[in-house]
């Protein structure tokens, strides 16, 4: 028997021999081996992740320092598979002694320990990118940073020691004050050399930056592609988003393990104090209620709370009604900025945005925003394109695993005059943008690609989508109606000439006079028709309700363009009239746009 034979030949390991090979694994080493968890699965994705981490950090830093971000991203191709990625910002810079920690240590940062809405969350990103570069090319990371006009800039070259999770400084140069790296006298430059692959299209660096520009209309981004083309994403708003407030965790948002950890670390000595100080929405009364629910009192010493008591406390938290966490900690992009961002990057004719009031999942406040762009130069035959964002960061991978994708699919787009195959995305010239703002975005994995599917989140998404969809529906129905009206007008005008000549041939009546008289009637008829009511019984005037809606933008220029392409240019006698109407429309469009800005 082969199995028996194998057994015989096997050496038996003892506890001792095994102990010899058992040692600590550093976090860096773990990620070096499991780089796909952080989004470095393949060379193409690695490039994207590196740019993404650097850009996220830069934008976070700028905003926190109250600076309008201006970023410059360059992808320099050194070799077929080797690239140098340089990201420069005009942010506050980094103090010299922190440079090693930030860029050379995994899990180091300011963002993990707080409950605050920001792009980065764990503090893994940029150092992991540097580590990936080092592993694939052997080249260290270069950082140049300057913190102010009268400060020198430091150029530091770093290597990451994966076994010690510590940075090793290769070189450290101090440049004089008047260097030329930073036109605004402050900022950071990160340069990473890595093995990558550049490809345009979906899930590319190009797409990422384009979408970043949409969600961050206050940022100016300059992008130099490997082909040495410069693409500018100009700033569309001169106003920084409000700064997000930091909040304490909500009792319902934590798990038992976290609770125990918090009990160990707290500075409070009594249970009541702990609950009031370390959590939000817990006052004296609520603290007492929670403690008593767990068979303790507010005066119970924290050090006396063991595992069993903590478990009771956890259960008591779950059973008690606690006010939802404050939501002023959330900074949505805002309908106006959403529209500005989309308007800048998507050539469509109709834009609508909706911002939902904040809501809560698992004790974490969050807020959904949706914007849609329709028509114009978007392709008619394709499925809708979904742009997903979490705290203003574009999500490019794993669309179908994302809660937002499911929300779009389960929304009934047919109600809004769009086609939608069963169980699929709607089809039509439409771009759907979904943004989730939260102090803690629940991603399905560490590489932050898809939003986890919580019922509360999906419901808010759907409500926001429906709000935008309704506006689109109104617009589309109105457009259809207007098309019908112009058709009707042209029908009458087309036949009047024939009728006038026929009557002239039969009775000898003056054809020109009759033509003029009939034309007058036709114009009157269709003017009445323009005043007719739409499906919902409201008078159709130009613009209608949508014109007064500040969350909607309609570009009539692109709209008429589409109508002309559909081709009814050969209208008898209607040409002059139609042109006049178009001009009038353009005028109103321009004025309304101005008013909006």
């Amino acid at each position, binding site marked *: 028997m082969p199995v028996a034979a194998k057994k015989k030949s096997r050496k038996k390991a003892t506890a001792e021999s095994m102990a010899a090979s058992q040692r600590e694994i550093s976090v860096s080493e773990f990620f070096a081996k499991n780089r796909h968890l952080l989004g470095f699965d393949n060379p193409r994705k690695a490039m994207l992740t590196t740019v993404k981490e650097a850009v996220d950090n830069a934008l976070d830093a700028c905003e926190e320092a109250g600076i309008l971000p201006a970023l410059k991203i360059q992808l320099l191709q050194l070799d077929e598979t080797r690239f140098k990625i340089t990201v420069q910002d005009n942010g506050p810079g980094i103090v010299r002694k922190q440079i090693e920690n930030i860029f050379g240590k995994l899990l180091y940062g300011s963002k993990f320990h707080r409950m605050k809405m920001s792009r980065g969350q764990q503090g893994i990103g940029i150092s992991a990118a540097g580590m990936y570069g080092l592993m694939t090319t052997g080249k260290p990371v270069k950082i140049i940073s300057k913190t102010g006009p009268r400060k020198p800039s430091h150029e530091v070259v770093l290597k990451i020691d994966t076994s010690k999770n510590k940075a090793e400084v290769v070189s450290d140069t101090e440049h004089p004050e008047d260097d030329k790296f930073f036109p605004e006298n402050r900022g950071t430059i990160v340069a990473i050399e890595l093995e990558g692959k550049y490809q345009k299209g979906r899930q590319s660096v190009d797409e990422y930056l384009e979408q970043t520009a949409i969600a961050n209309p206050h940022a100016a981004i300059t992008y130099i592609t490997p082909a040495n083309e410069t693409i500018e994403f100009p700033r569309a708003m001169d106003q920084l988003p409000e700064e997000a407030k930091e909040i304490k965790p909500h009792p319902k948002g934590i798990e038992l393990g976290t609770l125990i950890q918090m009990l160990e670390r707290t500075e409070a000595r009594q249970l009541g104090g702990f609950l009031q100080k370390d959590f939000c929405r817990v006052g004296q009364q609520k603290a007492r209620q929670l403690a008593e629910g767990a068979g303790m009192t507010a005066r119970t010493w924290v050090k006396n709370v063991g595992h069993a008591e903590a478990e009771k406390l956890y259960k008591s938290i779950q059973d008690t009604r606690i006010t939802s966490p404050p939501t002023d900690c959330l900074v949505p992009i805002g309908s106006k900025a959403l529209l500005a961002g989309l308007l800048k990057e998507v050539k469509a004719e109709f834009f609508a945005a909706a911002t939902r009031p904040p809501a809560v999942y698992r004790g974490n406040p969050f807020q959904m925003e949706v914007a849609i762009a329709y028509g114009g130069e978007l392709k008619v035959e394709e499925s809708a394109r979904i742009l997903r964002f979490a705290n203003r960061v574009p999500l490019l991978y794993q669309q179908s695993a994302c809660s937002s994708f499911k929300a779009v699919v389960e929304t009934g787009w047919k109600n809004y005059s769009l086609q939608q195959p069963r169980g699929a995305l709607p089809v039509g010239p439409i771009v759907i943008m979904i943004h989730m703002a939260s102090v803690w975005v629940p991603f399905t994995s560490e590489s932050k690609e898809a939003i986890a599917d919580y019922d509360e989140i999906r419901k808010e998404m759907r409500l926001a989508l429906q709000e935008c969809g309704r506006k689109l529906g109104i617009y589309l129905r109105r457009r259809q109606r207007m098309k019908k009206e112009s058709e*009707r007008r042209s*029908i009458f005008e087309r036949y009047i000439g024939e*009728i006038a000549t026929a009557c002239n041939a039969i009775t000898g*009546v003056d054809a020109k006079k009759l033509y003029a008289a009939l034309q007058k*009637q036709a114009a009157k008829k269709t003017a009445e028709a323009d005043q007719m009511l739409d499906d919902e019984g409201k008078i159709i005037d130009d613009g209608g309700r949508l014109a007064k809606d500040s969350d909607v933008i309609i570009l009539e220029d692109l709209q008429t363009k589409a109508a002309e392409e559909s081709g009814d240019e050969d209208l008898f006698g209607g040409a002059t009239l139609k042109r006049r109407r178009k001009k009038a429309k353009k005028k109103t469009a321009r004025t309304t746009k101005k008013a909006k800005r």
Partner: protein
Amino acid sequence: MPPRKKAAPRKKSTARKTTKKTAKKTARKAGAVSKERDKATNRAIELLADGVARDGLKGREPNVEIPLRTVTNMKWNKRKRILEMGDSTQTRSLFNVGQARKFMQTLLLAKGSRELIRAEKTLSLRGMYYMSLHTIEGTKEKTFNDQGESDTVLEDLEVSLGGLREELHVFAKKRGTMVGNITIEDNGDEIDCRRMGTGGYAIPSICEPSVIQFKKCDAKFVLHVEKDTVWSRFNEDRFWETHNCILTEGSGQPPRGVRRLLHRLNKELGLPIYCLLDCDPWGHYIYSVIKQGSINLAFESERMAIPDAKFMGIRAMDYDRCDLSPDVRIALNERDITRARQIADYPWFKDKRPWQREIKKLLANGFKMEVESLITKDISYVTEEYVPARLKAKDFLD
């Protein structure tokens, strides 16, 4: 368009009656008659166009009233035993998206037929279509997309003017054949229908007294068969000679010319009309149209319908009576069955027991039979045995 339009048809019908009377008297001078009728038609067309022009100039909506040619606007005149058109009309308006094009077409055809009248020429339906066909100025749209469009509008024009197609100087493609013991004059040419060879006399689309006059008639009845295949059988066997009759055929549903000719043979010469049609709902409906008039041309029933026409066969019971082979049976399909029930429900069939029994039998059989099925018995069974037997027994359905 208020009273003007409605007045026009009334005026027209009186005009027609007088012309008919004169037609009988001065039959030989065909030209004079049609001129008088042309005048009336001309007048009607002018009234129509004048109404449109006057409305247009005065800032009113130009409309044309068109009598409805639908089942709902049909009346069964029990006394006269014909279908008549009701009083319902539909308004065709220029300023209605759905009607604007048809409105334009109506006027175009009015203009076209006026030109024809003035030139004293006639055109076929297809000719009329081409005459009014052009591209509308400044567009890529044609005035008519196909002949079908112009045909229906022309029918609308007929009813709204109260004039006939032939009065508008338009005729349909001719269909139908005749042989028999009769001599006629067709537009001045004398035609002896006893000497028509194998092809027969092609019945023209217009069979008005101004075109066709009956000269010498020895025939005692008319036998109308459904199709020319059967008609050829009778002609080859010289059936009309042996039985002293006239033999006609209408290629399925008989066109206006054939119906008008049969009507005149019946009314003017007093000849009984016997129909030999297929044993199926479609054959029954052909008989119904010959006898009572059609829904589409209800306004002409008085000049077309022959309430005394008789149905000779073939009958549902002939399968057993003539001992036909099972091969001739054609199963009734769903549509046949619904159609048969509809026909049984027509008011002019409803009260007739024999017809109710006939249709019941047809449905009970579950199959239909063509006249040609009698050929399975013998090539000349239908001419030598079947029809003579029916005639002798006076075995007809009424």
